């Protein structure tokens, strides 16, 4: 007697082959899906992921790249920073590592942003674990430098503006006599957009633009240290950074020089 159909056809093998074919189809769709994220010429980030939809509001082409205002500044020595508070994210943290200026207080940490910085507690010498709100409630500073914004690229333009304004209003309320310096967010190198498509200098410039509009030139001043680091295209010089976003510590000498030569002194 010949073999039965069951003996001739190994159903297990057929199922294994079917599984293999299904695998090929699944793999095809998976790889195809991962390749559909595009970055258009205006750097808007097109994707079905809702996380990034709001960031498209941040994107705009700026016809006028010049957003800094003209001031007459004085050149001062480091004693100018006595009783000064530096607030910021990792870029300001880098500055604090480079130089602990005598008499200055640093409230800066990685991932700091306008949304949470008032309430989050952080170790600050010589106060210990303290929130920014408590720090500025209990102490009066002569000058306050603020460098924030880049950690909120992608958070939604209006939302960011709202929180940043709230932060500045709180500082003004609690520090009525302080000169407030709003520092532009440093640019990133042109290569960074390959790793982080929405972290572009156009988006950073948008944030810097609304920060500059808060300045009143009486007690609140806007400073743009990007002049110390940019190449001719308005990107951070790629020689100055390892990760395309933070400058090497040794290049904070330029940051310090910029602050020392852009000081407001009331007569």
């Amino acid at each position, binding site marked *: 007697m010949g073999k039965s159909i069951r003996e001739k056809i190994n159903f297990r093998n057929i199922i294994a*082959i079917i599984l293999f074919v299904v695998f090929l189809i699944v*793999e095809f769709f998976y790889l195809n899906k991962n390749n559909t994220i595009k970055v258009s010429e205006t750097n808007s980030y097109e994707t079905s992921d809702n996380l990034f939809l709001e960031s498209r509001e941040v994107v705009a082409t700026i016809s006028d790249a010049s957003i800094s205002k003209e001031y007459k500044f004085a050149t001062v020595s480091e004693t100018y920073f006595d009783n000064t508070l530096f607030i910021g994210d990792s870029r300001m943290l880098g500055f604090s590592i480079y130089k602990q200026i005598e008499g200055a207080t640093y409230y800066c940490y990685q*991932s700091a942003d306008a949304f949470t910085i008032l309430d989050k507690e952080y170790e600050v010498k010589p106060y210990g674990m303290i929130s920014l709100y408590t720090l500025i409630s209990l102490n009066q500073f002569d000058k306050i430098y603020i460098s924030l914004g880049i*950690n909120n690229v992608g958070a939604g333009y209006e939302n960011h503006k709202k929180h940043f304004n709230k932060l500045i209003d709180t500082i003004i309320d609690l520090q009525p006599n302080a000169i407030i310096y709003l520092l532009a967010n440093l640019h990133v190198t042109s290569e960074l957009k390959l790793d982080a498509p929405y972290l572009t200098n156009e988006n950073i410039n948008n944030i810097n633009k609304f920060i500059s509009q808060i300045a009143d030139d009486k007690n609140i001043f806007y400073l743009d240290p990007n002049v110390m680091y940019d190449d001719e295209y308005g990107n951070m010089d790629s020689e100055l950074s390892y990760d395309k976003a933070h400058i090497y510590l040794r290049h904070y000498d330029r940051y310090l020089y910029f602050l020392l030569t852009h000081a407001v002194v009331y007569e």
Partner: protein
Amino acid sequence: MPFNTHNFIFIFLPFFLLSYYLADVRAKKVILLLYSVLFYVIGNYKRLESIFILVFLTFMNYVFLLFIVKAKRDIVKKTAFIIAVSMNIIVLCLFKLQLFTNFIPLGLSFYTFHFISIIVDAYKNKHLSYKLIDYLNYILFFPKLLSGPIMRYDNFISEYSQRQSSENYVVKGLFFFSVGLALKCLLADNIAYIINQINVYGFDSISILTAWVGMYSYTMQLYFDFAGYSLMAIGVAYAIGIKMPDNFNLPFCSKSISEFWRRWHITLGHFFRDYIYIPLGGNFANKRFIRQSLNLIIVWLVTGFWHGFRINYILWAMFICIIIILEKAFLINIYKKHEIIGRIVVCALMPFSFLIFSITNLNDLKIYIHKLFEFSSVINMRDFQVIIKNYAKIFVIGILFLTKYPKALMEIVCKSKYMMIIASASLILISIYAMSMMNSDVFKYFAF
């Protein structure tokens, strides 16, 4: 396709295991081959040159293999052997030297060694079956294709023919895989942040303590990354009943540098020992120390070049070689009397050697080494304070995982199937979460 991706964990591996276990004995070989081929193609479809090189070398080596096995005249065998080995070495060197391109086909360093191994063993008349499907499965066996462990053909055939399939193997294999994945995602990738932070600061701006933390971080990142990957490979193979050789065996518990290199990247060490050191004469019965030292220098030069044609790899290799020669000369006698000295040498000099290995720019290396001994930098240690605040926990956990205790814990878990299942599920879930956090939130990764 790396093992630590969603694609591999959720799509490739489940489909592969299901297909493999459904297929009957004869079809299993075909299924394994199909998935191995796809594994490489999926990982390299954007770089077709990689696929072409692998196909070309696989085909050519098989042709030469058949000549070696079937030829009746010794001159034909020898010619085929010389051409085959030379071809593999030349292709490897051409890509390592980066004469025509900066690109190196994925897995080239490892699969060329598999080709050389099978060719040499066939030439030595190891009477084995060289059926096409067995040969292809050996070369393309996806768990070891990209980064080893380096496995001999006879070992592979023996394991494959004697393999057993049962749920115990699947459970244990997936447990090994999950531990490897955790080593890579939870330890190596997090310790990499410390290295990244130090690079962001710039080597010329770090204080002495940061430099030392960085040196140990480079070592741990290298170890957990590679050991984790090897364990994942071993786990996947074990899940289908194939036992691949261990690649790491608690190297930081060694009592000498020589012993360290018998516990670190074990299969590479065995390859160089069996195919270069021993044919050169090996240890020469302890009487011809100069010849033995020369053999060691040759082997370590080859090791350095295998990693890349860069001066830092050669410096690294020679640094280790000199220590090993000194140990053979007299240091080992000192270690025998005072074991602690040997352990201190391992814990101090091996991380230093990995610094030389990791920092490819010689000027940066010089600056970094200077920073290790710049005692005046204790005045401003703000960078160290930031590093400790952000990364102390992962650093300490990393140090703990260099000891023998995690492995002992693993062995305890292996005694119970249910403990393995719970541990595997937990480790895979946590690792996947860590992978997702790293991939989806660019800002967390850059940590502005």
